[in-house]
């Protein structure tokens, strides 16, 4: 391996956010004209690594990173994405960053427009140069053609199908003349199969012309078919760096999810034999949910009374949409039967009233009133839905908040869940993430639900608090026989607490496995390998 041929060298890179280590000692190299497949679970550190590479502001604001990165043999440390762009790194993000009212050409050349000088611009500077539409169109046309697709550069982005938008986004990056390294973050997620194929071909073409590509995808078969080289990240560490040749999908899946030691074994006391399909508390048929970024397309599953049912899968695949849809927070359709009764969708009040409760993944955005005291946060839902903590005055005409009852309730949960606070009157904003999460749990418990949805209960909280939250959930499940459906991107967490786990991929349930199934099986389901679906289901039957 000659030094001259190496474009990117990542050396001992590490990063921690406020004491939370997300990357440790990451090393790999990328040669010119090579395609590198980067895989890993959510939270494995992929996006942090890319943020470092791209000089995103977050990195600087949180104290920079450790180690060195070399581009073309030169050490780099970008202060802003703009510097990265100028050094020839292009990045296509998962979310589109296109201007809908602009044409394809205008988007491709955004802020690098072709201009012609004129009299006024000679006096007042370059920004008053006139746009050269003809040149822009030509340049855009070339970029689009490189990708091997046929899109008119004059089309407005808002009138394009999703797949075309993705191509425009990539065309924008390759149009920059200096582009040496292209980072594609899940570019095929929104494409149809044939479009994905065109894109993969285009990537090959680009690579052959000397551009190096870092390709992030959860579709492992794509990784195998296109990449020269494979890097697997797990828990912030590079597990494998090797050529793709001769690697099997199963193997990658294992590297992705497999823990070196089989961590905490499932500790729940209940046996699967305790449950069967005779006592179904919730049945979901053909559910679709229109939750931006977490679309659910067609989901079917049954939950048995008293179990803890896990829903896992990679980010953006739709697992979060399931509870949000059933609870009526996002438009949804399909058929949901709860306690043998049909549950009307798109009606949050009704869902809560019939005994469901939901702890949202968006703790600060949906879960809490940050500027209100803890007791109000805990009691609010129970008060609004079940008329608890209410004193009726004037024969029920005035429903007065019973502050004493609210206080007692809050004190009870503060004690039970060990919420660390100065008093029940402390503002929710001032609590730590873990304690905020406990307040969210208390809010749901105060509703005394028969079925509880918990979404990402341990996201963004420290290890100690994680255990407390999970313990609280398990205890609540055991003491009250409340059925719990827990959605989480952390497979280990699901395996440690759940009885059965459904894996959601591309808006559908890829399979439902017992928590005891092997990690590899879970990994494969996450990667959307269809052929293993049957195997998954047979597992469940055992």
């Amino acid at each position, binding site marked *: 391996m000659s030094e001259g041929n190496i474009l990117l060298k990542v050396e001992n890179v590490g990063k921690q956010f406020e004491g939370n280590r997300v990357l440790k000692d990451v090393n790999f190299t990328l040669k010119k004209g090579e395609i590198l497949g980067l895989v890993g679970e959510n939270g494995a550190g992929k996006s942090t690594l890319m943020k470092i590479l791209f000089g995103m502001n977050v990195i600087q604001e949180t104290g920079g990173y450790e180690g060195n990165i070399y581009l073309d043999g030169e050490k780099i440390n970008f202060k802003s*994405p*703009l510097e990265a*762009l100028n050094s020839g790194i292009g990045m296509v993000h998962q979310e589109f*960053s*296109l*201007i*809908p*009212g*602009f044409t394809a050409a*205008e988007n491709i050349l*955004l*802020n690098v*427009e072709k*201009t012609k000088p004129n009299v006024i*611009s000679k006096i007042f500077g*370059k*920004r*008053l*140069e*006139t*746009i050269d539409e003809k040149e822009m169109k030509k340049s855009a046309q070339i970029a689009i053609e490189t990708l091997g697709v046929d899109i008119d550069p004059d089309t407005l982005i808002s009138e394009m199908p999703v797949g075309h938008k993705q191509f425009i986004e990539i065309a924008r990056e390759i149009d920059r003349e200096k582009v040496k390294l292209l980072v594609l973050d899940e570019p095929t997620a929104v494409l149809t199969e044939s479009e994905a194929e065109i894109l993969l071909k285009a990537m090959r073409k680009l690579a052959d012309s000397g551009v190096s590509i870092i390709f992030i995808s959860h579709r492992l078969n794509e990784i195998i078919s296109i990449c020269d080289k494979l890097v697997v990240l797990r828990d912030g560490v590079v597990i494998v760096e090797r050529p793709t040749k001769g690697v099997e999908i199963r193997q990658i899946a294992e590297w992705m999810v497999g823990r070196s030691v089989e961590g905490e074994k499932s500790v729940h006391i209940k046996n699967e034999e305790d449950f069967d399909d005779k006592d179904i508390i919730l049945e979901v048929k*053909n559910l*679709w949910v*229109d939750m*931006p970024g977490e*679309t659910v*397309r*067609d989901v079917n599953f049954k939950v048995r009374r008293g179990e803890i049912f896990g829903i896992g899968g990679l980010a953006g695949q739709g697992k979060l949409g399931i509870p949000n849809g059933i609870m009526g927070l996002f*438009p949804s*359709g399909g058929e949901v039967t709860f306690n043998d009764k049909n549950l009307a969708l798109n009606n949050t009040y009704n869902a809560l009233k019939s005994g469901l409760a939901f702890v949202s993944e968006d703790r600060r955005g949906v879960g809490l009133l940050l500027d209100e005291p803890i007791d109000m946060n805990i009691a609010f839902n129970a008060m609004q839905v079940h008329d608890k903590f209410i004193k009726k005055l004037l024969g029920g005409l005035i429903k007065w908040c019973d502050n004493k009852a609210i206080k007692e309730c809050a004190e009870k949960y503060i004690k039970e869940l060990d919420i660390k606070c100065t008093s029940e009157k402390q503002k929710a904003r001032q609590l730590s993430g873990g304690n905020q999460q406990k307040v969210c749990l208390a809010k749901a418990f105060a509703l005394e639900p028969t079925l509880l949805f918990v979404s990402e209960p341990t996201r963004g909280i420290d290890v100690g608090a994680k255990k407390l939250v999970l313990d609280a959930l398990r205890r609540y499940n055991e003491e009250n026989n409340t059925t719990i459906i827990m959605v989480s991107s952390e497979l280990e967490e699901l395996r440690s607490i759940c009885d059965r786990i459904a894996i959601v991929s591309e*808006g559908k349930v890829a399979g439902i496995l017992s928590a005891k199934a092997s990690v590899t099986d879970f990994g494969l389901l996450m990667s959307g390998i269809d052929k293993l679906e049957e195997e998954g289901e047979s597992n469940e039957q055992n």
Partner: protein
Amino acid sequence: MKLKSDSLKRFLIDSAVPILFIVISVIAIPLSKFTGLYLVREIVTRLTRDTFLVLSLLLPVMAGMGINFGMVLGAMAGQIGLIFVTDWGIRDVLGLVIAMIISTPIAILLGYFSGGVLNRAKGREMITSMMLGLFISGIYQFFLLYLCGSIIPIKNPKLLLSRGYGIRNAINLDTAGAFDKLLRVKIGGVPVSFGTILIIVAICIFTSWFRKTKLGQDMRAVGQDMGVADSAGIKVEKTRIQSIIISTVLACYGQIIYLQNIGTINTYNGADQAALFAAAALLVGGATVSRATIANAIVGTGLFHLMFIVMPMAGKNLTGSAMLGEYFRMFVSYGVVTIALVLHAWKRQKDKEMDRAQFRVDVKTSK
């Protein structure tokens, strides 16, 4: 065929407001009993008088900042320029040009300040720019009422209040009609001031040229999506400030053109209404808070003023009360701005829903 009817529908929806005003005017014109010649003369006068002010609103709309109600800052700068020129006794076109020269730096400064404030109030630019106009009007009054004639020397006693300092409420301009008198031609009994019209044409050309420059393109990008523009390396805040500066300076010139036509300055109340009438005119022309063209500005100015002339008279002839027409006129001015703002906000919500609805269809068909 379907496409044709769709685009027709779209055209009708887009121009619903102008059509509504044409209908109102068509009903009101016979009631007002004005002669055609009189109306044409009035409209031509008012088009030359007001169009420039309305045009000054275009760029902030393009930069996504909505109607720049803060254009009154520019109008005030223009008035200050005119007051000084009057004090120095400079007449005619030279006086106007010097007034423009004096007021330009003031307008740039005020525009810079205004742009900075609006950058701190993203998402509520319109209400903030309106309040900013009222706030600066307090400072403007302080400047003219207490500083002029006491700290700032004013030689011409005709300008001062009888107490010895402070500018009078109404000032006659020596420069009255200076632009209008240039190249004035009578066409069929209607005097047309080609001098002023040439200035307006020049500004139209400037605006449409500006849209095609890099800076114009940046403004459009910022106006559509600040986030994307920022990640592409466009300096969002700076671009927004620039659009407000240009708008303020243009409003300043617009006010000078407006006042030279009127011939007198209403020192303390003149500028306040400038933004309301300019905004109403633009919106009557079919513009929205996020899209406005030169054609919208010109058509709107014509239609709005047609209604403005006709309505009080029609109201009087119909009910015998002149005040009724006057109130109706004010009601319509405010009402049209209200309707345009409501329609825009409502459409934005609907568009979002439509996007999602389309998505839902996709989801269902893919099953």
